[in-house]
């Protein structure tokens, strides 16, 4: 593996946040665009999850030592190197580009122009993922997470065993995590714009005025 670009330059600030919660926010939070990035480069879509997990592992292990200044760039660089490695190792003939690995040099920003998603859009997305769950699973998750009933209470309410409730919760959580990824693979529907249409809902970062 070639050395990574110098995005990993030491611990950022005085951040003493536990690594796991940092990782969830700064790395796992980019899953949708990461998967979109991998899918664009990697022709065998059934391997995307493997590549994604491997990228997470590498990033997690690297950040044990030092947290990157720019976690997202680091994540994408890691995924890119990992795919280049696989291509060399498996002697895959590049399918999309003319023989060399140029296609790997996709600029991250091209795929994911930094777009801050409003809380509103995030909720809309969550509601859609939730709507795709099987009906019973959906109801169990609702009672447990929204109505905050215990597993036993949910079991009583629905006339099911606690074991079955646990099964639904496990499946529901896995599916919710998966739907984010599938969302990235589906043709893009501009899903939230209709909710934002008449407001300046897009965040734009701070601008300095003199």
């Amino acid at each position, binding site marked *: 593996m070639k050395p990574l670009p110098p995005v990993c330059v030491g611990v950022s600030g005085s951040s003493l946040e536990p690594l796991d919660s940092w990782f969830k926010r700064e790395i796992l939070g980019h899953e949708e665009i990461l998967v979109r990035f991998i899918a664009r480069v990697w022709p065998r879509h059934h391997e995307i999850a493997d590549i994604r997990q491997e990228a997470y592992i590498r990033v997690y292990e690297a950040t044990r030592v030092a947290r990157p200044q720019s976690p997202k760039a680091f994540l994408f660089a890691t995924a890119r190197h990992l795919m280049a490695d696989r291509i060399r190792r498996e002697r895959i003939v590049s399918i999309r580009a003319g023989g060399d690995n140029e296609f790997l040099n996709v600029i991250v920003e091209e795929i994911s122009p930094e777009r801050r998603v409003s809380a509103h859009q995030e909720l*809309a997305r*969550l509601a859609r993922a939730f709507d795709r769950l099987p009906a019973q699973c959906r109801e169990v998750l*609702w009672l447990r997470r929204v109505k*905050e009933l215990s597993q036993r209470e949910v079991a009583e309410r629905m006339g099911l065993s606690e074991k079955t409730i*646990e099964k639904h919760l496990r499946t529901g959580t*896995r599916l919710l995590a998966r739907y984010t990824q599938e969302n990235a693979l589906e043709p893009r529907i501009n899903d939230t714009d*209709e909710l934002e*249409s008449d407001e300046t809902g897009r965040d734009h970062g701070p601008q*300095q005025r003199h």
Partner: protein
Amino acid sequence: MTTDRNNDIEESASGWLIRRDSDSWTDADQARFEEWLDASTLNRITFLRLELAWEESARLKALGAGVPGDRPPPPGEWNLTAFFYSHRRPAQDGGAHSVANDGWTQQDSADTATFFRRALRSSRHFAIAAGLFLAVAIGLGVYQLQREGEHFATPVGGLTSVPMIDGSQITLNTDSQVRVRLTRTERRIELKRGEAFFEVAKDHDRPFIVDVDGRHVVAVGTKFSVRRDGNALEVTVTEGVVKLDDTILTVGMIARSREDGLLVQRKSLAEAELNLSWRRGVLMLREMPLSHAVAEFNRYNVRKLVVADPEVGALKVEGNFRPTNVLAFVRLLESGFPIRASVEDEQIVLNAR
């Protein structure tokens, strides 16, 4: 690494995750769980990924806030607009998710009565929910409704709408409290602290009066917000006519009243609405000195921002932000301004770099 193996690990991870949040979790379970986490980085990242999905699912509460009964609404029938826009909006051209069917925004008295009955019945759940809500802290979905008599309040970072029996609606911003008294001759709301947006149902026989520390804001049928900072008072009118003590305020007017006098500005409706972006969980800052911006953020967060340097405080910032996501704001500041932030448990200090 194969997909099958990934699947097996995800299956195990989901088991740990769900059982950990159950009542039967023991110290021995915890020890075994930690051993499993430490066994491989793949175990750990698989678990974290599911844990994130599990945590995110709690945000459905934001959508469950107005749903009657215990069951989720049918797929596709989320009233996202109703939650974020407390005034009624015309249906937008029929995308599946614009969800124009008004469902529970309709505030006829039957619905309102149901709301109150439900609130009473589930007051225990509200209490349990409160702690978790704060932890989830995305600001929007996150609210706590304390109801003792006719008091309604939100915690720091909270945002909630309270439907009233007369068809009016009160939206409370962060760290706010009102007391509501409805009689046959008047509707009287005391803003004890914070900021509230009022959508007043027309009722000529019963004026709608907001009391703020001896000053009165009177409306008949209108929309306006009242914000209180100590003794200072700010009224923003977005529809109809409002009377602040003896001053008539119309659409687009922003009145600031302090002990030393009253300042009234006439603005466009769009500019006036900027003052009300908090109802959607957004803080819109326009050419604002950082010192003011920091004061705004501090209303929404327990961990306060501190400007260590007057030079830093004078920098002008502009942008739309989630007021509860103070760390994101700080990161943006650090990347775009000559500012260095030291993040501490209790506060975040902004220094010149």
